[in-house]
């Protein structure tokens, strides 16, 4: 198709390709914050084309080396913000040290989107229906942010504030996500319920559990597609800590979800149905965790 002249078009904007983080931050400030950072563009470009967003300046951060790469740093895996979704599937360090991300990656949209979309971009957008933001919660990850006032690290638990609203301030960008290294006493599980493979899930869930023998020492359960933000279910987690994964405990955790979740109204998935699906999914995932011993 003759995209140049007939497709839906974004409003005109200026383009700047940043070579370093400082360049990018500086350009943003100079544009009076009427600017957007762009990396994979898998959410931003459609929003521009639909004219839902029309910034004066687009700052391309895809050539900033510092935002790339996956490596061990002490007890963490440092995943550069530009790491593409497809690399979550192909990068051996992720499979070994952040297997929950590896398990969630095939559920992220379709190959064409995974080839361009970035981990940092997904976390920055904080779409409550996206897999990776929710998994940063389950992993107890830390998000490294660069901004005009310097660098800081924010725990995932403190990062997601409301619908598409995060701890990121205007002019800040995510540089990397730090994930604690997966250990031998841990187990994980991920799954989601969707009408079609690759769709936004009706509900999705990832779990990272630390075991002391057969008992759960610590567990983090995080949902996607259940509310305005990625959502940890602390009530359900609490019912499981210190226990074995038996049918009674699993049922108690499922019951606790009612206090953890308040799904929004929706014509296709009413709140009660979404809560029901969240329970079903939790039952299945905890069952799998139990079998994984």
């Amino acid at each position, binding site marked *: *198709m*003759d995209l140049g*002249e*007939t*497709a*839906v*078009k*974004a*409003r*005109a904007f200026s383009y700047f390709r940043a070579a370093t983080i400082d360049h990018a931050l500086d350009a943003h400030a100079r544009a009076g914050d009427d600017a957007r950072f762009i990396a994979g563009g898998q959410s931003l470009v459609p929003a521009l084309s*639909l*004219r839902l967003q029309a910034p004066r300046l687009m700052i391309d951060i895809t050539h900033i080396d510092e935002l790339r790469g996956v490596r061990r740093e002490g007890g963490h895996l440092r995943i550069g913000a530009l790491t593409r979704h497809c690399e979550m599937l192909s990068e051996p360090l992720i499979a070994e040290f952040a297997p929950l991300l590896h398990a969630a990656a095939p559920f992220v949209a379709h190959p064409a989107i995974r080839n361009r979309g970035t981990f940092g971009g997904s976390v920055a957008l904080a779409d409550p229906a996206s897999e990776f933001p929710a998994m940063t919660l389950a992993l107890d990850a830390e998000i490294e942010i660069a901004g005009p006032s310097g660098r800081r690290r924010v725990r995932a638990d403190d990062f997601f504030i409301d619908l598409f609203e995060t701890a990121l301030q205007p002019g800040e960008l995510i540089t990397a996500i730090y994930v604690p290294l997966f250990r031998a006493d841990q187990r994980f599980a991920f799954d989601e*319920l969707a*009408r*079609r*493979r*690759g*769709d*936004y899930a*009706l509900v999705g869930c990832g779990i990272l559990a630390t075991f002391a023998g057969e008992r759960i020492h610590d567990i983090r359960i995080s949902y996607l597609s259940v509310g305005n933000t990625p959502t940890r279910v602390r009530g359900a987690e609490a019912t499981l800590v210190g226990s074995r994964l038996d049918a009674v405990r699993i049922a108690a955790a499922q019951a606790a979800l009612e206090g953890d979740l308040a799904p929004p109204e929706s*014509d*296709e*998935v*009413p709140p*009660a*149905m979404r*809560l*029901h*699906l969240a329970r*079903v999914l939790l039952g299945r995932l905890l069952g799998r965790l139990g079998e994984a011993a």
Partner: protein
Amino acid sequence: MTAPLTSLDRPNSYIGRSVPRPNAKRLLAGRGRYVSDLRLPRMLYAAFLRSPHAHAKIVSISTEQARAVEGVHLVATGVDLAKICTPWTGTLDHFKGMTSAPQWPLPVDRVVWAGQAVVAVVAESRAIAEDALELIEVDYEDLPVVVDIDSAREAGGALINPGSVNNTCFRSQLDNGTVDDAFAHAAHVVEEEFTFGRHTAVTLEPRAIVADYDPADGALTVHHGTQTPYQFQDLYSRHYNIPEARVRVIATDIGGSFGMKLHVYHEDMAVVGLSILLGRPVKYVADRMESFVSDIHARDHRVRARMALDAEGEILAMEVEDLTAIGAFSTYPRTSVVEGNQVIRLMGAPYRFKNYRATLEVIFQNKVQTSQYRAVGHPIACAVTERLVDMAAAKLRLDPFAIRAQNVIPDDAYPQTSPTGYRFEALSHQACLTRLHEMMDYDGLRAKQADLRKRGIYRGIGIATFVEITNPSPAFYGVGGARISSQDGAILNLTPSGEVRCLISVTEQGQGTEAIISQIVADQLGLAQDHVKVITGDTEVTPHGGATWACRGAGIGGETALQATRALKRNILEIAALILQEQPSALDIVDGQVVDTATRNQRIPISEIARIAYFRSDTLPPGTQAQLTVSHHFAPQGYPFAFTNGIQGCLLEVDVETGLIRLLKHFIVEDCGRVINPMLVDEQLRGGIVQGLGAALFEECRYSDTGQLVNGSLADYLVPMPMEMPDIVIGHVETPTADTELGAKGVGEAGTAAASACVLNAVNDALAPFGATINSIPITPMKVLTALKRF
């Protein structure tokens, strides 16, 4: 030992053979000529400002700022275009009492659905046009919005068309036999209310048009992604008052249509007017969001139906009430009531009973128009009938195959008339039922189902018989006053090198029309297929005809090609006979060579006949005028429609905790008469089934209570995707029509006709152990979980 020789073993026997489509390679190589790709010198681009309201009065439109944008050439409103374009009304005379309001390219005083185009901007690029759209201010005054069937029918409720007495577009009734008596004396009655959501075509290439008016010549050329160039030639000529011979519509490659692109769209008519106003080519390609709010939608029915049976399971009668909501207008020129009309006429079509009563009520509402889309009316009639048959079978403790075998019209009982008045020449329900039963390994599936149920796995098996309308005669549109042809024309000529060019009025939408026409021509003339070139879709070049829709391309277009080829062959052999001093009847053509009919000995290549006729006519006997170009038209006669039939089967698994449904396998046995290209027929069936499965489980245009389409993007509107589609197993029964030499009937809609019915029956079969039922399409997880009372 070798297999016995068949007719397919003789040279040039292409009818019945799976040969590749000659145009497939070109399309795969990216060499398609789509209107979306077209760029003409001095071409401008149109974009449309759309109504955010489902129903509102247009108080004022302010366009000054938009006009001032650099690169903008024209800003036009409904009033501007109404000065040069006459309005149209989507009614047909044979739908007695039907009403619909007049329509203009853009509305002059009122908007009637959210997304309706209101103002057009033409600029040097689409981006500039969209920039200018943002500067247009329209002052609207809200009017009451009518979005659901019940509020549309409320006495004293809001009216969509001022001056009308109610929101009814059309009513119709059928009453045959003694329905009341049959129900009064029935041993069993099953009854249900069914709902069918709206869905839409979602073609790969959206609607696309380039209108090019040349004021010096007074001529209009329209490059139009449509199935029906002749229909649009007529409409552009008459509504813009340009002589027909000066209107040319070119419809080359098209990225899917499925019926969606044969209707008049307001934007398309506007683009023609914009080109006339500017004297320059103007292009418009709908984007995906625009497609969702402006392409026709389909279905949207609520059907209450009941079926009476005797104690042995013999169907005695059906009574049906169909309410369907079509949008604010009836579509032009084919109307929006054909679907409802076919719904009430196709009910019960496979079965023997004679007592039938139906009412149809077609209602306006503030949504985009519905109209003909693949398998018009069939999926509704099929789902209602087949679900009732299954409900009856359950009540009588009969197997779904057994009750159908007991009630279908026997294969040896034709001709027959359906309880709704359709005349059937010859159908093959019994043969199809038997074949499907074997093909599915039905007994094996049932045993496995029972076994899995013990382990908490709920599989469902569903079957659905169907009848499909194909090869329509003038009874379809012509009698209603529509200038839509049911005949086709072909011009065939032998080139000086002995090849054949065939210009034919049927069109190619990707289904392989050009392939089967070249097969028929090559087969009938006695020539290699690659020596036949087929040209379609240009009103300046190809003869006037109906084009390709309603499954008429193979049956009517194919017969046109067959008869035209036989005429050309006669003319070639006449010249050959003169040259060879033989009787024409003693000669035949095989592989491009004139041969002795009796001995098959080669006498002279047809290229030599062409050479002599074109370049050395002096060597032919005096008075000889070789006619190596023939034109021929064929209009269907005999039965008003060539009905086809078949049966589908579905195996699926319902996750009773999540409501998600996994399609495991799908089956179809289909009878489309003579099969010209088995590979293309199978792929038509598969594509049609996939569209039907989309309707069954995924596709629905959902509206808010203010009339806003809430899922108008491909992220939210779910089309069927490969991961969710099952393998499809295909079988054939061939009952050729005797109305034509070719014997072909249509096949393009058979898959869609029964796929959703089949899934509906299979889901209900899976849910049977829970006493839960579903009678609504699409079958969403919410409907399943609600039926199972899981939340």
